[in-house]
Every structure is written in structure tokens, then in C-alpha cells.
């Protein structure tokens, strides 16, 4: 039998529908899954807050925000745009095609042409000779032409006869030596079959006069469609940064940060000024000037509402865009390591979320619902904690709320605004008792979540603060950041969508008041808030108090010299005023005790001048750090000269200062 290979064309239209179906399913299945997820599962909902202990459940509706309807409209618009979008059209058309092809164009492939003796005999491929024989006998008894029942039609008879032939050849294939080897070699008991390559196209398209058409189609596919898809994708990549900020906006922010006049203090409002210049805002609000936009933001911050529906909906839309832009700005500002820019930007984001003015000292109180800003700013209570030391009547007076029920609601919200009481902050090197030089350390913070209602602080045993050094911990000490329960959505009724509450940690070097080189804002997203629900007695008792932890990696190895390096850690809450943390932390670099026998000589040296040891190296490291800041020689001469020159003035100053200090004490008393 001559084996030849040839092309078979899909004249009957049997194969190409399957080809198209396969292609379509590759696109449609992932697209459908992602659309479903976006439309129905990923929708932020405050209802998830009810499952979190210590969360605030109030929304724009429950506290009667004046523009609650406007916010609701915006939300439903956002939601419907998640359901009714271009993807949905693609999905409908795609699945329509799939359905049509499936229903009308596919034909059942004739599987009988495929020869599988095991399938024909209906036995498993591991069957023994005996099983094969017995099965064959049973089947041949049933289908043997002589044994067929008399009352069947001619067609049925023919069918049974072919079945009998197939059963016979299947049996042979499994028992007869020659046929068996044929089957194993060529996949068919009769020896090699013609090899054919299928093309899922009818012949006339490939070999007839229409073949140029096919070339054109191929050309369009590869020469036009593919490049344009890649082009569109690339354009998108090029016009937006990884974080979704328009590149021109990112460039603008970078320019603003580079050209910043260091003599001018950056306030939240100057950050707002920069953010309003962004391309995103300009594209979305072509009909408004920058001054008009500013007025809208100002209205939002003052919780003022107008009767103009257009400007109200513009306001909600504008305000909802700002936090993401500010976050984008922060991502860039962090690279500049400049604290004077980062802090006002985070404050602005908070102000936007809470609809509270970023300047002044009353934000903590003003973030509460129902408050009368004029009354609040005319009195002395500035902090949430103070509210809980006052009687209901005094609180009502301080907040300017007359309805006692509303006062209670405001207090309930205030009691659930968490602050973090840091009880332990140390630099840790896993597996070491101290922080050795040139090691990779992280800052470990232990804190108690504290409600403003709770006073003082429980004493916690050191044992409870110690971390067990398991293998998991040694492998990734920062893992505990992820294992605590997730924080709820923030209480922000004046804002148009739900934002998860979090803290961002910035590690700052005290020497130059800048972010530590190479460090970012580290997000603290998982905290157990159960402490907000406990009573003062349970709090002081401290047994059931839950200790939270947060770890921040140190991006550079610890210094090579022994001594103390001062840092400062700031944790900024993204939504609440009065929740921030700002504490100094010292990194103390010491030689590990275990290595004593190894560098005995050095150790002894250190020991010999132990008393001066405490201050000496420290001075060294300060001088070193200072020298590193500005070229060494310059700094040195500056310091010395300054000291020489000012010797007498300095004493002068000091006497002056003692004067002032006693004065201040007087006033304080």
C-alpha cells in the first residue's frame, strides 16, 4: 500500500467551525470571567464592614449628608458602567457567534472512521486475552448475521453486519500477530493509511481564482490588524504610568517637585493646586476653569451645598478623582524623599475624604457628622479624646449639635476612630539578639489599637511582645503584616466611593529629616480593631487586649560602625484625623555577643575604654553622617569655624535662652 500525503480541504465545512470555536473560546472565557468579577464581585460594599469588629457602619444615607442623592447617583453610574460597557458588547456578540456556530454550522464528526479495537469491543485496554475472547464471543453471538432476529428492517440489518465486521477485525487486531503489529505501527489493522493534512478552508479559497483574496486577508491580519492591536496597547502603556497616572500628569508632578522653592512652605492647598493642573482633571472638566474647580473643592471641604444640580454633580465627580491623583503624586514625592511635601499631601487626601478643611486645628472634631464648624472653631476642645471626658451637654455645646440622639451618634463614630498606641518599637535582625553592623534589619512596631474613649494604657508583659522565631518567621519576617485581619472600609460619608482604611508608614532619618534612601511608603492594611469595642476596665486590665504589629524593612544594611542612628517613624492614616503616629526610633548597632571568640582583639579594645564608648562612636557616626551629607571638607571647616567664631556669642545666646525658658515655664503654670 503506497502511503502518500496530501491536503484535504474543508469543502463540507466540517472543520472550520471548530477552529473558530477554539479561537473564540480563548478570548471569550477569560473576558467573561473578568467582566463578571468586576461587575458583581469586586463592587465595594459597606456591608462587608458589618463582618469586621470595630468598623463604622454609618453611610451618607444614615447620617443625612445633604448631597447623599448626588453621591448615590454617582455610585450607580459607576456600577452601571461596570456592567454596561464595551466588554459586554464584545461578550454578547462573541457568545452569539459561538451559539450560532454550535447550533447551525457544526456537524458531528464520524468517529466510526477512527479505529480503536478496545472501544469497539468495549473492553479496557488492560484486558487479558481471556477477557477479550469472552467479550468477542458474546458480541459475535449478538451480531452474527445468522443469529439476527427476523423482524428487523434492511437498514438495521446492514448496520449490524458492518458492526459484526468491525468486531471481527477488532478481535483480530488484538489476537492475530500480523494485524496486531499493523495496528501498533500504523494505528490501523490493515497497515499504513493515507496521511492527510487538513486545512480548515474550502479548496476554492486556496487553489482556485480566489486565492489572491486569501492573501489579502492574510495581509490584513498580519500586516494591519496585528500591528494596530499592538500599537493601541503600546499607546496605552505609553500614555499611562504603571499606577494609572497619565504620563503628562506624572511629568507635571515631577516638574513641580523639582522646581519647588525650598523657602516656600508646601501646604495641602498648594498640593491641591498642583493636582488640579493634571491632565486627567483638565480632560474631564473642559467646561470649567481652574478657579471654578477650586471653588468646587472648597465647597466640598466646607461641606457647603448649592441648589445647582450641574455643579453638584461636577463636584462629586471632581472630588472622587482627587484621592487617586494625590496618591499618584505621593508615589512620585516619595522618590524625592521630601517630608515637607509628603505630609501635606496625605493631609489633603484625608481632608478630601472627610470633607474637612485641611488647615486649622479642629479637623479631629470637624470630621464628625452633624457638627457646626462655627461653633466648633469657637471653643477649646480640639481632640476626640477630650470629648469623652465631657458630659453629654458639654459635648452638645462643643459640637454645636442640639439633638441628643445625633450627639450620641457622633460620639459613637468618634469612639470608633482608631488610633495606634505604640508600645514597642525596635529594630530587629531575625536570629540575632542585637543589631549587628552590616546586617539587614527591619523595624518592628507593636501597638494597641485605641479608641479615643479609652484612657491611659495597659501594661503589657514583655513576653507577649516577643516573637517566636519559627522557620516561617526567619524566612520572611514581614509576613505577619499580612496575617492580621483586613481593615474595614473607612467612614467617609461625604466622599463618593468606599475606600479601605489604611496607614502608610514613612521611615525618616532624623539627621536630614528625609525619607530613608530607597524606602517607600509602607502600607499597613491589616489590623484587628477589636480593642475599639472593649470597656475601660478590660482595657486597663490588658489581658484581652489585642496587640497589633507592623514591620517595615530597612532598605539599606545597618551601618558598619557601632553606635546609634536616630530615625523617626510616621504612620499616616488615609481617612481619619487624630489617628496618626509619629515617634522617634533609635537604631542601635552593636557587635553580636556570640561572635566574641572570633574578634577577641577588637572586643577587648572596645572594652578597655568602655566608659567613653557610649558617647564616642556616636559622635563619630554623627560626624560621618554629616560629612556624607555635604562634601566632607566643606562641612568640617564650617562646623569648626562656626564654633570658634561664636564661642562668646554662644554663651551669650545661652544666657538669653535660659531667660526665655523660665519665662515659658511661668506661662505654662
Amino acid at each position: 500500500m503506497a502511503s502518500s500525503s496530501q491536503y484535504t480541504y474543508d469543502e463540507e465545512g466540517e472543520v472550520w467551525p471548530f477552529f473558530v470555536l477554539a479561537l473564540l473560546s480563548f478570548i471569550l472565557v477569560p473576558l467573561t470571567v473578568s467582566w463578571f468579577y468586576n461587575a458583581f464581585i469586586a463592587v465595594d460594599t459597606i456591608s462587608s464592614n458589618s463582618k469586621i469588629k470595630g468598623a463604622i457602619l454609618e453611610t451618607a444615607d444614615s447620617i443625612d449628608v445633604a448631597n447623599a442623592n448626588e453621591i448615590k447617583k454617582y455610585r450607580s453610574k459607576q456600577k452601571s458602567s461596570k456592567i454596561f460597557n464595551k466588554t459586554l458588547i464584545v461578550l454578547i456578540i462573541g457568545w452569539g457567534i459561538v451559539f450560532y456556530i454550535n447550533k447551525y454550522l457544526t456537524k458531528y464528526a464520524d468517529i466510526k472512521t477512527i479505529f480503536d479495537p478496545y472501544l469497539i469491543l468495549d473492553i479496557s485496554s488492560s484486558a487479558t486475552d481471556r477477557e477479550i475472547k469472552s467479550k468477542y464471543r458474546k458480541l459475535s453471538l449478538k451480531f452474527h448475521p445468522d443469529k439476527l432476529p427476523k423482524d428487523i428492517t434492511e437498514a438495521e440489518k446492514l448496520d449490524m453486519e458492518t458492526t459484526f465486521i468491525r468486531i471481527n477485525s477488532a478481535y483480530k487486531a488484538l489476537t492475530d500477530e500480523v494485524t496486531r503489529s499493523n495496528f501498533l505501527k500504523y494505528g490501523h489493522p490493515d497497515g499504513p493509511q493515507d496521511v492527510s493534512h487538513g486545512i480548515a478552508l474550502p479548496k476554492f479559497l486556496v487553489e482556485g481564482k480566489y486565492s489572491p483574496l486569501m492573501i489579502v486577508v492574510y495581509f490584513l491580519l498580519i500586516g494591519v490588524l496585528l500591528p494596530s492591536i499592538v500599537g493601541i496597547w503600546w499607546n496605552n502603556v505609553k500614555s499611562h504610568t504603571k499606577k494609572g497616572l497619565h504620563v503628562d500628569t506624572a511629568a507635571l508632578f515631577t516638574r513641580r517637585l523639582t522646581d519647588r522653592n525650598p523657602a516656600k512652605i508646601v501646604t495641602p492647598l498648594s498640593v491641591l493646586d498642583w493636582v488640579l493642573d493634571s491632565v486627567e482633571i483638565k480632560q474631564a472638566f473642559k467646561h470649567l476653569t481652574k478657579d471654578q474647580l477650586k471653588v468646587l473643592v472648597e465647597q466640598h471641604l466646607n461641606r457647603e451645598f448649592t441648589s445647582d444640580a450641574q455643579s453638584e454633580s461636577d463636584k462629586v465627580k471632581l472630588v472622587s478623582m482627587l484621592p487617586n491623583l494625590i496618591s499618584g503624586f505621593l508615589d512620585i514625592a516619595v522618590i524625592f524623599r521630601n517630608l515637607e511635601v509628603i505630609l501635606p499631601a496625605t493631609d489633603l487626601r484625608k481632608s478630601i475624604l472627610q470633607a474637612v478643611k485641611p488647615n486649622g486645628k479642629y479637623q479631629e472634631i470637624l470630621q464628625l457628622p452633624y457638627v457646626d464648624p462655627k461653633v466648633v472653631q469657637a471653643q477649646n476642645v480640639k481632640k476626640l479624646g477630650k470629648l469623652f471626658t465631657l458630659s453629654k451637654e458639654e459635648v452638645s455645646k462643643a459640637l454645636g449639635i442640639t439633638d441628643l440622639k445625633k450627639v450620641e451618634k457622633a460620639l459613637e463614630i468618634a469612639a470608633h476612630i482608631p488610633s495606634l498606641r505604640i508600645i514597642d518599637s525596635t529594630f530587629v535582625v531575625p536570629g540575632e539578639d542585637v543589631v549587628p553592623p552590616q546586617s539587614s534589619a527591619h523595624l518592628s512596631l507593636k501597638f494597641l489599637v485605641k479608641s479615643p474613649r479609652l484612657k491611659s494604657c495597659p501594661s503589657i508583659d514583655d513576653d507577649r511582645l516577643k516573637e517566636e522565631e519559627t522557620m516561617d518567621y526567619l524566612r520572611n519576617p514581614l509576613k505577619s503584616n499580612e496575617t492580621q485581619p483586613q481593615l474595614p472600609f473607612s467612614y467617609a460619608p461625604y466622599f463618593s466611593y468606599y475606600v479601605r482604611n489604611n496607614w502608610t508608614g514613612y521611615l525618616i532619618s532624623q539627621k536630614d529629616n528625609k525619607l530613608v534612601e530607597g524606602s517607600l511608603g509602607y502600607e499597613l492594611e491589616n489590623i484587628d480593631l477589636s480593642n475599639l469595642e472593649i470597656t475601660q476596665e478590660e482595657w486597663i486590665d490588658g489581658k484581652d487586649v489585642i496587640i497589633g504589629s507592623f514591620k517595615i524593612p530597612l532598605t539599606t544594611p545597618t551601618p558598619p560602625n557601632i553606635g546609634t542612628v536616630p530615625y523617626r517613624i510616621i504612620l499616616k492614616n488615609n481617612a481619619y484625623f487624630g489617628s496618626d503616629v509619629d515617634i522617634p526610633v533609635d537604631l542601635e548597632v552593636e557587635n553580636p555577643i556570640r561572635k566574641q571568640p572570633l574578634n577577641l582583639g577588637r572586643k577587648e579594645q572596645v572594652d578597655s575604654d568602655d566608659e567613653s564608648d557610649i558617647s564616642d562612636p556616636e559622635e563619630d557616626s554623627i560626624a560621618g553622617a554629616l560629612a556624607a551629607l555635604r562634601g566632607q571638607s566643606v562641612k568640617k571647616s564650617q562646623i569648626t569655624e562656626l564654633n570658634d567664631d561664636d564661642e562668646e556669642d554662644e554663651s551669650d545666646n545661652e544666657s538669653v535662652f535660659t531667660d526665655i525658658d523660665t519665662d515659658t515655664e511661668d506661662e505654662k503654670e
Partner: protein
Amino acid sequence: MSLEISYDSKTKKLLLPKDAEIISPEVKNDIDQLNSLTHEIIANGSDVPPVPTPENFNKDMSKMIRKLYETGVQAFKSGKFEDSAKQFSIGIEMISRRHKFESFQGTLQELSLFLMSRADANLKAKQYLKAFNDADMLIGMMMNTPENFLRRGVSNYFLGNYEAARADYQRGLSFDENNERLQTELNIVLDKILEENGDYL
């Protein structure tokens, strides 16, 4: 936004339209700085200004400034704090009139001395915002002495920015952890923060 920049060959200065200040304060600022630098170079008489060294520092001016400083201190000692602050302000004005191409090292020294004294005078005169600005300027100039943080901290304290005052004291202590005055002030402000929160230890 576009601005027309012209050159006046008589005064040898770049000119901006009158409303430049409103249209773009940054450009106005840049051009002003450029003008004063070119003016200084021209007044200098040579093509390239001399290398700034401590030797060619204007000593006459130093003497005058020194005198101003002494009268300021005198006023301070006799309790006339407003006058003293005014004297120091005049001194600072004079320092900023110094030749722009002079050794900045010397200028910086004088300036920081005056700023420190003016901050103290302002603190005594209860001009806390002014005192804050002076201390802030000093810290901005990287004069990271514990005293400067004390100055800014005390200003912040009296301006009611207790958290900022605390941060100042703590940063000051990171430069000299045994500074007793900073420590006592820090304790005072920590108590104040607790009191404001209605909290206790």
C-alpha cells in the same frame, strides 16, 4: 501663557511686562535674580568675579554688621525685645545686601547668628510666628543644633502646634540626647498633648 522678555541695553537688564508678577511669579522671580547677578558682575568691573575666599570677604561690612549685632544684644539685655528684633532685622537686611559673589560661607555664618538672636528676641517679645519663621529658616539651612530645634519647638508650642513641637524636641534630642532643656520641654509638651486629648498616663 507667554511673556515677552526684552533687553534694555542701558541698564543692562532683562525687562518683563508690568503684569508679569501676576501672570507668572516664578518667571518674574527668576528674571529678578538674573538681573541682580548680572548687575553685580558688571559692578565688579572684571569679566569673571574673583574666587570667593575668606580673605577677600568684605571686612568693613563685617565690622558694621558686628556693631549692629552688639546694639541688638544690648537692647535685648535691657529688655527691649522689639527693638532688639528690629536691630537684628536691619542686620539681616545688611547681610543680604552683601556682594553676591562673596564667600557664602562667611555670609551664612553671620546670617545664622543673626537669625538665632532674632528668633530669641521674637520669642521674648512673644512674636511666636516670627520666631518660628527664623528658627525654621535656620533648620532649613541645615543648622541642626539642638538649640535651633528648641527655638522652633518653643515657637510651635506657643502657636499651639503641640505635635510639631514634640517632633522638634525629639529631633533635637537625636543630635544631643542628653540636652536637659530639650528633655524638660519635651516632657512639658507631652503632658500638654495628653491633657489636650483628655488622657492620662
